[in-house]
């Protein structure tokens, strides 16, 4: 179902016909395939991604961009979309080309796989889920453990009237173990995740010790103390560091926020915003990472973009419109959730580069404070320059030592104050990237990854 080659001729001819009516038109077609199994000991469920294909046409008119999306790639459906675009062009003909450079890239790329995922059948997936489930069976106080094993292949074909042709096939594979502990009506959970872009070999990374550790943490959370509240030294675990990078410099550096005049970061471009040890990167070309792409949905190749280099804010993320408006080049960050959703400037894999300290050194340096562990999510505030991230749990730091476990908490703070207060980053040995998703506002979810090493700073924390 994911294959798109059967529709390419029709798509090509539709673009060619529309190109006679407008200076620029493009089409993105998509098809998905895959399978997901969930197992918890009593219940097993299977879910394949929808057998759905579709396309979105975008054309430049006299009044800006117009788009039409359709589900289906058969000739009558594509003709319906083409006609709708034609009608708009009749009412609003374009006289000038759109701002920005049209991609003319020719890209043909697919996820390399050591072990092809398509060979991974229903029965084998269930067997794997049962095996993983058995790793934590019998763990004390663990009421239930859900195991999810899934893969999803996303095929996209991009064509435009400037002769670009970009075909990419991305396969995301993931295993998730969620143990739930329960005692006297109180329930707590933790998650152990292993995932990336690749084939079945990704799942070889699922280890019994990881699953058991998650079960132990869920159980320990039943007796966790309430977290402190107020300003504290905070030591962020790699996943929480990732959420911080994503919500602060990720969303804040999406250049459509510059155009909207709502990024607190825009006037700081070129300025020092943090210590020399701090480098933040968005890297869509990161091989194997959850949000790896070969090209974006405007046909521009994915790339590594340095947002903060040694403490200096150096770059932003662009699509063709923002690049044109701000005198920059597209950075391969124009992304659509699917062909029914519009393109925005979006992050890919956003992370803080490792430093040189060890975890133990950072704990000693903090002396008193709290470790935030297990990033759950966050939200940006591009205009106000604030950031919120939530951690599933944490530990107190008292007199330079890790002490009591505390339950879930949120961190809130002004990004620039937080950056100025950074006192250390741990090294490559702690670096992790997660397998998450991100919305633009409250819609348009797409695969996203964030990460980094341990990071020491200070911020306001509180129960959450």
């Amino acid at each position, binding site marked *: 179902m994911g294959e798109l080659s059967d529709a390419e001729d029709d798509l090509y001819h539709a673009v060619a016909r529309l190109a006679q009516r407008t200076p620029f038109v493009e089409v993105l077609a998509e098809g998905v395939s895959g399978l997901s199994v969930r197992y*918890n000991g009593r*219940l*097993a*469920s*299977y879910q*394949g991604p*929808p*057998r*759905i294909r*579709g396309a979105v046409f975008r054309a430049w008119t006299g*009044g*800006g*961009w117009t*788009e*039409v*999306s*359709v589900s*289906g790639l058969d000739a009558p459906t594509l003709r319906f*979309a083409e006609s*709708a675009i034609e009608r708009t062009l009749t009412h609003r003909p374009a006289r000038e080309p759109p701002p920005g450079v049209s991609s003319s890239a020719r890209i043909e790329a697919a996820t390399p796989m050591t072990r092809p995922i398509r060979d991974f059948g*229903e*029965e084998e997936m*269930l067997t794997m889920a049962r095996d993983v489930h058995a790793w934590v069976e019998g763990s004390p106080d663990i*009421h*239930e453990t859900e195991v999810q094993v899934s893969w999803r292949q996303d095929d996209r074909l991009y064509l435009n009237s400037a002769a670009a042709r970009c075909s990419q096939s991305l396969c995301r594979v993931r295993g998730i173990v969620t143990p*739930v502990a*329960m005692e006297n*009506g*109180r*329930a*707590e*959970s933790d998650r152990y995740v292993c995932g990336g872009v690749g084939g079945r070999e990704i799942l070889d990374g699922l280890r019994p010790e990881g699953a058991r550790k998650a079960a132990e943490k869920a159980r320990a959370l039943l007796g966790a103390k*309430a977290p*402190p*509240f107020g*300003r504290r030294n905070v030591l962020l675990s790699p996943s929480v560091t990732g959420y911080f990078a994503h919500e602060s410099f990720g969303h804040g550096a999406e250049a459509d926020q510059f*155009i*909207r*005049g*709502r990024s*607190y970061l825009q006037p700081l471009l070129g300025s020092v915003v943090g210590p020399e040890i701090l480098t933040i990167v968005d890297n869509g070309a990161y091989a194997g990472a959850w949000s790896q792409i070969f090209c974006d949905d405007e046909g521009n190749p994915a790339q590594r973009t340095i947002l903060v280099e040694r403490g200096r804010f150096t770059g932003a993320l662009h699509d063709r419109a923002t690049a044109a408006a701000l005198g920059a080049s597209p950075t391969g960050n124009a992304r659509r959730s699917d062909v029914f959703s*519009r393109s925005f400037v979006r992050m890919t894999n956003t992370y803080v580069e490792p430093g040189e300290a060890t975890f133990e050194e950072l704990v000693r340096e903090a002396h008193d404070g709290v470790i935030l562990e297990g990033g759950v999510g966050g*939200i940006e505030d591009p*205009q*106000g320059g604030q950031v*919120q991230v*939530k951690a599933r749990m944490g530990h107190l730091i008292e007199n330079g030592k890790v002490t009591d476990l505390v*339950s*879930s*908490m*949120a961190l*809130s703070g002004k990004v620039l104050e937080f950056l100025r207060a950074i006192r250390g980053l741990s090294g490559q040995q702690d670096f992790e990237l997660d397998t998450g*998703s991100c919305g633009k*506002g409250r*819609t348009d*979810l797409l695969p996203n990854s964030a990460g980094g090493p341990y990071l020491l700073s200070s911020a*306001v924390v*509180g*129960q*959450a």
Partner: protein
Amino acid sequence: MSAPRGRDAAAFRIADQLAGREPWEVFGERIRRFEIHLSGNSVEMTRGPIAIEGYDIRVFRPRDGALGVGSQASNDFSAEGIRAALEDAERAARYARFPAHRFDLPSGRGATGGIVEVLDRGLWEYPMDSLENYVAALRTAFEGRSGYTLSFGSVRATLIETSICNSDGLRTGYGHTQVELEVAVKAFGGPEGPPPGEYWLNDSDRRLRPDDVPRRADDWCRFADDVRRGSLAPTGEMPVVLPPAVLAGILPTVCGGRLTGSARLHGIALAPGVKVASEMVTVHDDGRLPWAPMSSPVDDEGVPQRKRLLIDHGAVSEVLYDSLYAGAFDTHSTGSAFRGLSSGMRTWYRFLQPPEVSPSTIVVSPGDGGSDAELVERVKEGVWIQEIGWSSPDPVSGSFGGEIRLGYRIRNGKLTDPIRGGTVGGFVFGPAESPSLLNRLQAIGSKSAVVESVSSPPILVGALPIGGER
């Protein structure tokens, strides 16, 4: 047109080809969507029609005292496409196992569930004109308004024909509209003052109401100005007032996590009769509330929606079920099967995801706390939380909390200075000694408002931890 009729509705076209494969269910949607995006006060992009037509086939195969449930969504209506989707569903059912003792699909012919107001007729008939009118109202509301601008915005309207069939003879459907509004308003203030503040609204509704825009724009501007002037929250445990806009980000997820058949099967449900809240708390789930985003004549399995008592004077009353989970506990569906929820954000096309058990609209019964001002009068020193950045409710533990995007200090029974930054959080259910939202409740206001999937007055919680200034 308010309901799909005849044989051309998405589900009906599939149903005709499934004879002999009982039991089965088909959920179909035919969708048209239109969007206008603004950058500043200008139109950046128009989108539409975004045309989607698709279906999901679910099959139920009894096996070894359990059910194998398989489903497959598709937009391929050709005979070959339907056959392929059915084969995928059958294959999933062979390996799946759901511990249901029995299973009852809803039956009947024709529309069921009566009339629920969920369709904006003007929008249905003239979608793009309606959107353009709304955007014109939005732009007009900010023209000539000194010190405030629109940073960006979007209005997205979705027109949906939902159809549901099953092998027990159910053939039902209805039309409905959904509107998503995103608006960011910036307040500048004077040159000597703090930097601009932004109020960022994400709202969902069933209808477009351009006449409301001027009034709402006044509120947005006031909030943006207060964001600009706000200072960090105080630190400590203190009385907190939470309005319905904040409760909307918390209660549906936590109630869905602990008061459903799904939670019961997973062993984390709160049992009927258990005291989980103050005596003054009575909570319903109402699937028929006019214009509420989750209201509909029938749920996504075709079972009529109704009003269900979840918490009665502080004690758990009813737990919600869809047909599948009802079968696991030898009870009946409460009309609580909803699709499009599994990503954490409700999707505007639902046929891609199988149903889950979920509340519709959580209705907190009004109390004797009086007006907003009277509720505040009860507080000597505390905080009114207008907006939490993301309240991050955890359906398992029932915890919630996040950054205070906008709040107000309460001093001697009056709302005073705006607050911006800091955290607030706790648990929804929990013993009184914990920071429990419903057990530490001191008063419930007397006047309800519907915000997203919650209808509630503001509530006054005796003490919640606030993290803020030193």
